[in-house]
């Protein structure tokens, strides 16, 4: 039970790409989706639509609608994952996903669709592997010989096929670098929803470990973090039980790139893998306990009269004074009937943006354990329908801090390559921590 047809439309609903995989879906389906979903007047109420026994699953990327149609009971999670992966793959081939790029590359896209979806079953979608035999250039020039061009050597061909179908489908053999280097970024997004009174309604960190590896051969890597579970597991045998738990981070859940050996993680809590070449996301994780919230926002809203509102917002930074936060932006919503705003702020620059119904307060840098304040007087127009209440959106905040709010630390990252002659210390490793705001909101 799989995808029957795949369509890409522009924002007007014109078809840019249409590929039918199964007989039960026909071109009428292309029109049905346009008429009933893209051209529907109301907001999209569901990413899944069933019309005349055909189900349409769609995502939107930029101005494009990417839609899979089926008449069977497909695995919906898989279809959505696939649609997102397809979008990523296209993006890695020709950059931004937009109408022009799709039109410019339609032959390439058809070629990709032929390769990564067979009879509606997703096949290998890894862009790195696909690029080894479906190339943009190959599309145009017959003179430049591509691996598919028939002139490629027999070894090349079988290397491609073993890679597409292989156990290590994400890495090819024979990679060589003069300098073996590894870049590791721990990037965390702090999400917060705080009540007006300063109570944390929900908070979590969505983190990822982003890697860039430039390593020769087929290296095996081992990666260790200060994960509570791992440390506890280890300390069973170690003599120092007092050490355990302290400074360790409790990870609620984590997910790994397909290169990580999951069974090994399950049994030994070891993250071991043969890395893809270049950039990839090794791991994603989520934590909810003991999060160090970098900022606290304290709002004070007073409705002075029917046509005047006073807002005061205090921002406090809560981390080591030696560290500097950057790109701080606080967005204070204003009612739609605002006629004017007077602003006073201690630090940074603030502006009322009428088009966005918000006061945007920007601070370039702020050290830890500091606080700053903004006061605003908002003039309101008297509107006819007083009854219609303004639905106050929360105050939201953006920032970047040079630490991981979850407390996660990289303990080690080791590289072993048995066949080639370089060892772990020959590899140059770079580690960086970045904490960014996810949805960081305080109700007011």
């Amino acid at each position, binding site marked *: 039970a799989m995808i029957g047809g795949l369509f890409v439309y522009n924002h007007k609903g014109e078809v840019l790409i249409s590929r039918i995989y199964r007989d039960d879906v026909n071109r009428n*389906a292309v029109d049905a989706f346009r008429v009933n979903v893209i051209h529907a007047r109301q907001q999209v109420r569901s990413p899944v639509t069933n019309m005349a026994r055909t189900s349409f699953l769609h995502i939107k990327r930029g101005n494009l609608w990417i839609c899979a149609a089926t008449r069977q009971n497909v695995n*919906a999670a898989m279809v959505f994952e696939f649609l997102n992966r397809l979008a990523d793959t296209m993006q890695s081939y020709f950059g931004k996903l937009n109408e022009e790029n799709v039109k410019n590359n339609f032959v390439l896209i*058809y070629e990709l669709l032929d390769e990564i979806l067979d009879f509606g079953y*997703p096949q290998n979608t890894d862009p790195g592997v696909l690029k080894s035999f479906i190339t943009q250039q190959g599309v145009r020039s017959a003179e430049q010989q591509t691996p598919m061009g028939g002139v490629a050597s027999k070894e090349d*061909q079988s290397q491609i*096929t073993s890679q597409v179908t292989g156990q290590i489908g994400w890495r090819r053999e024979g990679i060589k670098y003069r300098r073996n280097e590894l870049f590791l970024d721990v990037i965390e997004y702090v999400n917060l929803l705080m009540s007006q009174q300063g109570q944390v309604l929900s908070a979590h960190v969505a983190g990822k470990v982003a890697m860039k590896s430039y390593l020769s051969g087929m290296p095996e890597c081992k990666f260790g973090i200060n994960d509570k579970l791992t440390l506890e597991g280890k300390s069973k045998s170690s003599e120092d039980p007092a050490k355990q738990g302290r400074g360790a981070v409790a990870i609620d859940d984590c997910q790994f790139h397909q290169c990580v050996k999951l069974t090994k993680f399950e049994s030994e809590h070891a993250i071991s893998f043969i890395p893809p070449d270049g950039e990839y996301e090794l791991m994603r994780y989520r934590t909810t306990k003991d999060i160090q919230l970098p900022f606290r926002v304290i709002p004070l809203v007073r409705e002075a009269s029917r046509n005047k509102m006073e807002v005061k917002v205090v921002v406090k930074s809560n981390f080591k004074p030696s560290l500097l936060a950057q790109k701080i932006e606080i967005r204070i919503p204003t009612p739609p009937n605002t006629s004017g705003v007077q602003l006073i702020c201690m630090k940074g620059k603030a502006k009322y943006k009428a088009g966005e119904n918000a006061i945007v307060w920007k601070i370039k840098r702020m050290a830890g354990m500091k606080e700053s304040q903004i006061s605003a007087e908002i003039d309101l127009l008297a509107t006819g329908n007083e*009854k219609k209440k303004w639905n106050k959106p929360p105050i939201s905040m953006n920032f970047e801090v040079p630490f991981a709010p979850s407390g996660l630390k990289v303990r080690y990252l080791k590289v072993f390559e048995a066949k080639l002659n370089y060892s772990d210390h020959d590899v140059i490793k770079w580690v960086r921590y970045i904490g960014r705001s996810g949805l960081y909101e305080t109700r007011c």
Partner: protein
Amino acid sequence: MTDSKYFTTTKKGEIFELKTELNSDKKEKKREAVKKVIASMTVGKDVSALFPDVINCMQTDNVELKKLVYLYLMNYAKSQPDMAIMAVNTFVKDCEDPNPLIRALAVRTMGCIRVEKITEYLCEPLRKCMKDEDPYVRKTAAVCVAKLYDMNPQLVEEQGFVELLNDLLSDANPMVVANAVAALSEINEAKPLIEVNSQMVNKLLTALNECTEWGQVFILDALSGYAPRDEREAQNICERISPRLAHANAAVVLSTVKVLMKLIEMLPADSEFIASLTKKLAPPMVTLLSAEPEIQYVALRNINLIVQKRPDILKQEMKVFFVKYNDPIYVKMEKLDVMIRLAQQSNIAQVLSELKEYATEVDVDFVRKSVRAIGRCAIKVEQSAERCVATLLELIQTKVNYVVQEAVVVIKDIFRKYPNRYESIISTLCENLDTLDEPEARASMIWIIGEYAERIDNADELLESFVDGFHDENTQVQLQLLTSVVKLFLKRPTDTQQLVQRVLSLATQDSDNPDLRDRGYIYWRLLSADPAAAKQVVLAEKPLISEETDLLEPSLLDQLVCHIGSLASVYHKPPSSFVDNTKAPLRQLAPNAAALATNGSSSGDMDSAPGLIGVPAPSGGAVPSQDTLIADLLQLDMNPMGGSSAAAPAAPVAAPGGGLDDLLGLGGGAPSYGAAPAAPMADPLAAWGAAPAPPAAAGGGLNDLFGLGGGGGGMGGVMGGVQGFQTPKTQWLDAASHKGLQLEGAVVRKNGAIYMEMAITNKAMQPLSDFAIQFNKNSFGLVPAQPLHIAAPVFPNQTTQVSLRLDTNGPVQKMDPLANVQIAMKNNVDVFYFATVVPMLVYFAEDGMMEKREFLELWKEIPEANEQQFTIMNNRGLSADDICSKLQANNVFTVARRSVDGQELLYHSIKYTNKIVVLSELKMEITGAPTLTLSLKSRHVTALANLNEMYQQIFDN
């Protein structure tokens, strides 16, 4: 140079130009031309005419060009099956190519060419490819078996491909295993040929660790169909798949959850193993909530199921389901559902404060659902009921119309769950009576008034105010009003007797709704036969409502849990309800369907399969001519009556002759209010002595008094059909400029006759009497069939309802607009003049049903110039069946129906009372496009007047 230029629209003669370019000697030009062809194909242009020219480009060593030609071939092969055979040789040759990529491409494409003749050529290359030395070719061949099975299952079985596929499960390459298992699962779904055994499961589990993410999904989905032999095996499988919960791909995670949920059932419920396993399930599901919104949506729909099946798993995770300000609406709605399911005493405070927050958001549906959720919390967690009620009251104070209405609805449920606790808030509710305009809210309020009639001093006034507009209410409200008034009467018999009589007569005599009438009669008889029993029945203690009202039925829930991650789990419906299992193999691909849809004519498929609807014939794909309608009709004409589809409507349903109406006693002239003057009696309950006897005893004098003689039998006849559309009353005379006479009215057709329904309201200081009415000459000769008789004077501030029967045998004069009628009304004060445009449909006669042959001949006879086309909106998403029955109820008769290539064509006939005939054709897209095309034809074009508006009104009501 970019490819987008191929999308530019080209002028006429394009096909010819392309043909030349395709046959060019220059390779470059050829390739450009093929690209243009593919671009045209993409946007839906029909380029099938280039088939031979494109195929000629197939033999090339340029792989890119080859792929493009293959793409074309897959699309059009079926319309040119004979030509497609020409390609076979190239495929067979390519399957022997030294390059594995070429071999795989050939076998992949060949399977997509759905021409029966090709299948026999496919078998040998496919067999070879399944044993190819290269895994890429083998994994492609595995899927090809599923393709072949879809076309010709028998061939696959005979040729032993299923066994070969089975062998591939032992392949050394994990991707080959994954594709083989996907293909086998699909074949097994159609017909169980291979039984999954534990040996196979072992192989799959081994491959699981090594194959691509998609392959893992195929394997897990296949495993979910396997029933382990014993506990040990079940536990073993659980252990081996649970590491997959940490996979980054949501589909892998959900499919793992599916298998685990199923296997857990097999294990002893209180084992430690289960406890640790269920612990592992929660985190990955929570993580799915930070994925892309579409995946969140799928996850939430599934979590909804999982929470119903095993409430423990996520009971600690309430917070993650809190709604974020910029979640898409579909995520918000689903989160709300899960929140309610997880609500319990320990977290109710938090939940409530969230819900209150949500109830002030902007999206109306979301706000409504939030208010409803507050009510459900009250019912679910008793300790929170008081806070919930307080919150609801606060929300009512906001006076936001839809918030108030939702609140009233849920408060009714709270009253039912906790009787005698919160009735003190009734007075607040009553203050908001005027704002309620939705049936559910009105019905809830009426229920509350009836239920607590003894505590609401002015309950009778409140209910009476609803009774005044009885006919304008929705059925739900009418039913509730009927019951509540009866309750009121039983509780306060002395002063509410008139009211109850009025409601009973409205429900039984003036209503066309069988449910309402039935309930009305039951109450009536109950009250007249045994008031004490009536009390016992109507005021009986009601069972408390249950906590969770929207739990899925357990067997359905179990079924859906087996489908976690799939569409069934998203729809919360079993697959059979949305999957069509009766797919016809090798169906017409209809490459020209788009063209068909735009040129607006129907397809020519019919000539090869007369009368078969829904099964398009495997015709050669002849391009339909522009003017096929007549041909189609001819075709229809030759079909035996009723042999095809629903083309044979039964005889008109409501066809009583004029005289019959009087017998039925339902005619407008009947004294509907005859019972009223008899009302004042000493003992109110005694008045019911005059209630009608059961229909079996019809003919009794008392029955006549109530105008119900023979009601039982007669009514059944009328109610058999769907009621025709009757335009609501509009104001004809306003009191201000007509000396206190306010007249509202409508001309309607019911029971085969035309009536003028009027509501005469006296806004003057003196009684109005001596009414008379006269019509001017008009297009259809409409005149009163009897003098206007209003028995009693209309007193100040009183309204009298009158129904006057009309005839069409009066003097005729063509009016403009056609249906305009000028009327004079006289009373003891003055004479008043007004005009009204009668809705055309009251002139649609009951004998308008035409024979097909007659219809066809007439259609051909009427010149093209007399045809008018309109677009009708299908605002209510009616199906063809709905449309036909709606039209039928209005004397628009279905002559024939046919469905052709995604379109449904409906032919109808109408006959006016003056014997003029109108023919209509309605065209609708089966896919449910929101518009219909209406073509009308008549010898007299003026007769078409505003008929399209009539259709629109019928559809909208």
